[in-house]
Every structure is written in C-alpha cells, then in structure tokens.
C-alpha cells in the first residue's frame, strides 16, 4: 500500500506548504534535531503535560510523545476543509434538535427509527427540551484523514467531550520556543486565541437569566481522569473555575459553587464528564463525580450544559453512515467532506461481506473510542482475526467495518532517522449562539510505529504541531 506523503506529494515534489519545513530539515544536522527533541521532552515534562493511561497504576503519568517535525496544510486546503467541517457541524446540530423535537428525519424515513430511538446514547430526558441558544454541540472534534491531495474523509465525529485541544496549543507553544527561526520563515496562522473563542462560545449560550455577565465553570471528573491536564489548562486559560462534582450543589432550581464567600450561582457548565455521570440522582446513584439534581435544573433551563446532554446519539458509529444524508436533509446541500464507506454489521449482507474480508478491513465497536476494541485487519494476526470474528458474530449490531484507508504520511523523527508515518487530524469546531468558528489548526496525531495506522495516544501514537499557512 503506497500512501500519499504530504510533504513529497504523489510526484515526489516538495509541496508548497512544506517548503519551509523541507529547507529546515535539509539544513539542520540530525544531532541538533535530536537535541531539540530531548529539550522538547524536558519542556513537556516540566509543564506537566501528561496523561493517565487507563489500566496502568492509578495516577501513573506518561508523556504523549511529541514529534518535532510539524505537519502543514496550505491555505486552500484549509479553506475547503474548514467549510466542510462547519457544514457538517451545522447538520449534526440540526439533527440533534430534530430528533429531540419533531423527529422529521425519522418520519421522512432517512434514518431507521430504531437506530436513533433504541440507541443507548439517545436520552429520552431531552425530548422536547429547549436548550439555551438552540445549540447542542458547542464543541466538536471531527477526525479527518487524507488519502490523496484532494480528498479528506471524516473518520469519526466527536460530539460528547472531545479532548486534545490542549496538545494542539502546547505543541505550538513548545515548537515556537524551540524553533523561533522557523516561524519567522513560514506564515503560520496563530491558534493561541482558542481558549478566548471557547469562552465566547460558552458565554453566548448562557440562559437568559444570566444577563450580560454569565458565570462559566469547567466541570471535571478530577485529577485521575486521563484528560485532567487539559481541563486545568483550559480553565486557567479562560480564567474560569475548574470544578468537581463536590464543588457544586443544587438549590431552588439553580446550580451553585461552594466558595470561600458562600454560594455562587453558575450559569454555564462546560462539562468534561460523560452524560451518565453528571447526576447521580438520574443515572449512576453510586457515582461521586456528578451533581445531584443537576439534570432537573438543566431541564428547567436554570443552567446550560455544554455540550448538551444526549449528543452521543449523533456521533455513534452506527449513526455515522447517515451524516451525509443529514447534510442533504437539513441544509439542502451536498456534503463537502466525505464519509469513509462503512458496512453496518447488523445488516446480514454487510456482515457476510465483512466476515469474508476481515483481513482487509478495519472493524470498530459502534460505541467505542480511544482506539480500544478495534481490529485493523491487515495488521492483525490470524488469531486476533479469529477472536474478533467470534466477538462480531456474538453481537453484530455492536460493530461497523470500513476499508483500510491508505492514510497520508508526514515526515516524522524516528529511531531510524526521518521517515514517513501515518497521520490523522482533529480540528476543533466551536458552535455558539450566532456563529461557528474554527481556529486554524487542529491536533495531528501520528502513528509512531512503522506502518501502524492507529494514532491514538493510548495505543502508542504521538502528536505534531499542525500548521495552517496563510496566503
């Protein structure tokens, strides 16, 4: 499988966006790059950007490997991509609003009713509820991959509590510190204002009672969550309180923080906690993470949750194949970004095809995330394939299959020198009451193992600074 390399291009010519990077790689001795790589690691460790890996010791902290060679996209590539992302988020939000109200798309027969209403991630509690500002997905992380110079495919939509934006910002900060000269040569669009844009977005969807100066807080599951660093980072950058469930309480249809000066009302909660943990009274009674009574306040409009409750039904992998249809149905437009062709294994024909071709396909759990519970056929052993076959047969509706895409590659610093490695991209889309904004950039994840297509940090992936070049 010959993958498209973003720097060299199909014809082996250095792409315009990579001009500065290629010159820099050519001119910099490998030893110096290695020194800088070490320096970067020290910087990351000192800042304390670590993540916790599930399944290791509680609190075990690891660094996500950072690759010092940036990934670049040219202005026209970005223009097209960002238009496509905006379109997709509009359609997904319209879909959520629709299924929690009139359900026109189901009536029109565009999506099977059961797919939505029997989905575990559909929240009947949200039926008929008006969300402040009419927005469900304030923050989306859409994973896209490239296979050639002209095509971006959406791999998955992350509409619940997408993470990774802190790496986008810190990767840039470290890169600018290590290689200031490089930034003097290339016109890289700035991304530092992301936290500011996020705060603006969150404030725009405050309930009406909050007036002109709404109080926003970030709700985290706490220091042992894998993304805790990011929660703290964003709260700090936005200058808002970082709260845990125990810091909040509900009284008289309002949510309050416990402060040294007594209770303080909260208007918008940017929650980085999954739906089923936000309120022990409504979901898991034994969970200590949420706030008892929060759901009831939310349903009465006393507080905004961002993202809204119940957005998971729109990013579920079994609903994913219908997103292009949503774009046509709600916006009357043709989708700018394409989906990866997907077989739904609950369909007998699709299942039969997939079982015959497991060694060529990527199979994912419909509700899985983080690269856990997935099979990459071409890289799997016979035994792994057989084990997966048994799991699929036992529960076909739990899986989807996709062709193994030839993900594009970028030059990456490896043990064997600079070599191409597969990458994906997660841009972050902010959807406020009046506008959608996308900071020009995103998180590039790179599969550091040779030939590997799995970019998740929990599976040995690293990150790169992502440059969007200005005209």
């Amino acid at each position, binding site marked *: 499988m010959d993958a498209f390399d973003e720097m060299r291009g199909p014809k082996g010519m250095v792409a315009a966006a990579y001009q500065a990077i290629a010159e820099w790689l050519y001119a910099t001795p490998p030893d110096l790059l290695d020194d800088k790589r070490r320096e970067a690691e020290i910087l990351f460790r000192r800042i304390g950007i670590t993540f916790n890996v599930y399944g290791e010791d509680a609190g075990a902290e690891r660094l996500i490997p950072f690759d010092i060679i940036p990934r670049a996209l040219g202005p026209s590539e970005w223009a097209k991509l960002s238009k496509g992302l905006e379109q997709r988020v509009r359609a997904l939000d319209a879909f959520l609003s629709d299924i929690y109200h009139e359900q026109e798309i189901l009536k029109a027969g565009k999506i099977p009713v059961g797919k939505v209403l029997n989905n575990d991630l559909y929240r009947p509690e949200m039926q008929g509820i008006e969300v402040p500002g009419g927005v469900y997905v304030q923050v989306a992380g859409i994973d896209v991959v490239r296979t050639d110079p002209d095509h971006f495919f959406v791999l998955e939509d992350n509409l619940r509590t997408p993470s990774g934006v802190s790496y986008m910002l810190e990767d840039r900060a470290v890169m600018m510190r290590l290689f200031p000269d490089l930034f003097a040569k290339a016109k890289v669009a700035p991304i530092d204002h992301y936290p500011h844009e996020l705060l603006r977005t969150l404030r725009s969807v405050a309930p009406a009672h909050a007036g002109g100066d709404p109080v926003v807080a970030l709700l985290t599951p706490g220091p042992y969550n894998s993304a805790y660093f990011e929660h703290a980072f964003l709260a700090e950058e936005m200058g808002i309180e970082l709260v845990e469930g125990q810091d909040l309480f509900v009284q008289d249809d309002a949510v*309050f923080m416990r402060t040294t000066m007594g209770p303080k009302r909260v208007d918008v909660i940017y929650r980085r906690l999954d739906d089923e943990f936000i309120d022990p009274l409504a979901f898991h009674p034994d969970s200590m993470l949420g706030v008892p009574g929060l759901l009831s306040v939310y349903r009465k409009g006393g507080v905004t949750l961002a993202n809204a409750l119940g957005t998971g039904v729109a990013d579920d992998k079994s609903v994913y194949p219908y997103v292009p249809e949503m774009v046509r149905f709600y916006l009357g437009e043709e989708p700018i970004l394409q989906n990866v062709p997907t077989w739904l294994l609950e369909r007998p024909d699709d299942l039969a095809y997939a079982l015959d071709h497991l060694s060529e396909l990527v199979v994912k759990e419909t509700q899985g995330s983080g690269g856990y519970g997935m099979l990459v056929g071409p890289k799997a052993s016979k035994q792994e394939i057989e084990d997966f076959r048994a799991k699929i047969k036992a529960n076909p509706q739990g899986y989807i299959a996709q062709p193994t895409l030839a993900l594009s590659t970028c030059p990456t610093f490896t043990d064997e020198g600079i070599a191409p490695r597969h990458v994906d991209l997660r841009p972050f889309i902010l959807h406020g009451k009046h506008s959608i904004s996308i900071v020009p950039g995103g998180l590039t994840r790179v599969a550091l193992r040779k030939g590997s297509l799995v970019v998740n940090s929990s599976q040995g992936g690293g990150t790169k600074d992502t440059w969007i070049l200005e005209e």
Partner: protein
Amino acid sequence: MLSRTAENLYWTGRYMERAENLSRLLDVSFRAALLPAADANPAADWQSALDILGITDAYKAKHGGINQDSVIVFLTLDTSHPYSIKSCIDQSRENARTLRATLSVELWESLNTTWLEMKNISRQSLLERGPRSVFDWVKERSHLFRGVAYSTLLHNDAFHFLRLGTHLERADNTSRLLQAKDRSLGALPPEGGTAYYQWGAVLRSVSAFRAYTQIYRDVIEPVRVAELLILKAEMPRSLRFCFDQITNALDALSQGRDLECRRLAGEMQAKLRYSRIEHLESQGVGDFLSVILNRLNGLGVQIGRDFLMTV
C-alpha cells in the same frame, strides 16, 4: 474562590513549609550530633527530632534502635508516613495538581521540578552526597517556591491562602522546636561550649544566628533565643512574625466579615505583641508554647469552618 481550591492552596503552602522545616530540624540534629563525644549524646539528639514530630513509635516499629542514618533516611525519604520531606513534597505537589488553573505556570513548574528531582534522590545518594547538601537543597526549593509565589501570583485570595498555610505551619514548627530545646537544653550549665554550641545550632537551623548577634551583640542566652523566636516582629520565623502574617492574610480574606478565626488569630497576635519575655519566663516558656500549640490547632479548625465549609 472555590472552597476546595482554598483548601488545596492552604495545604500546598503548609506542606512545602513543612518540608523546609523538616530539613531545618534534621540540620540542627545533625549539627548537634557533631559535638565531641564527651559532651554529645547523638542518640538523644536524633530521638529529640522524632519526639518533636511525635513519630518515635512509628520509627521504632520499623527500625528498632536510634541510628543516625536510619533516622535521616526515615525523615527524608520514607513515604510510609507523612512526616518525611519526600511525603511533604508529594503532598504539596498533589494538592497543587488540582490547582493548575489557579497557580501561575512558574509556580507549578517550580514545584513540579522539586517533586521530580526529589524522586531521583535515593538512600545511597542522600547518604553519599551528604545529607546536609540535600537539606540545603530542600530549603532552597522552598525559598524559591515562596519567592515565585510572591512575584508571580496575583496577590489575591490564592496568595493569601497559600500564605496562611505557610505561616500556620511555621508557627507550629517554631513552637515545637523551641519547646523541645527548652526541655532538653534547659538543664545545661549556661557557661561552657556545649550550651553555646547547642543554642547556636538552634539559631542556625532557623536562619537566626546572625540576627541574634546583630540584635543582642551578646553571648547566646536561652532567654534571648526565646525572645527572638517568640516575640521579635522583624524575625521571619518568630511566632510574632507568623501571626502578623496570619492576621494580615485573614483581614484580606474576610473582606469585612466578622469571622471567628480572625478573632482567634487577633487574640494570639495581641498576646505576642504585648508580652515581655521576662513575664513569659516567669510563667514558664514551655507552658506558654503549649498554649500556643493548642491555640494554633484550634485556629486551623476554625479557618476550615469559616472558609472551607461555608455551605
């Protein structure tokens, strides 16, 4: 400010100060143990360090008899109990970990670096490198922590809670140290090198040797040491100084509210401010320090009631 944030700040400050005080305590014990054999009783000096912290039983359960290296390692690196330097730095950093949005980047980085470097100190490197260089390093890191806090944090509630924790801990430590030395050195004949050396070591351990000579220009007398460490407002580790800081922080934090913790602190500050050492001496310095330690405890509890359990 969130009550939980305030609590974490308070303990971040307390634990960092405690780490520093532990190295000071170890330093004074180390100095005392260097006395010529005829005058010295090293086991008693190390025993006294454990007694001040109230962890003699925990030590003996683990190591049996008193042995210099074992005590040093126990109080520096052993994380099976909360009174080692390493445990304190772990705790300070653990509390700060949840404060990432409140602390300045520099303050977090400084604390995180201390924690990372502490992790690299082994029993072997501690004893080989010389424990006193490690104690000096801990003091430096603690000074750096306070300096970075002073010059990078907003001087708002976050700063005041940090300061509150720092000075409560320091007052507690100075009281304990002085009480223990008053007990163990009180019987020494005032003339002769031993008393001078021992009290000198106490002064050095709280960075007060030079201050003493500047203020008193005299031989070291226990009663003057007590005066310096209890009543002198200009001496940064004295009880008076600590209480000036505590009342000042509480004034800023109470924002006009009439809080019980402020009243308690004010009462103690007044006592320190208007007492004379002769008077305290006739009452018994040790007894006075017992009262202070008791009150400090009560003050800590009341601060919790007034700020941390407001709902």
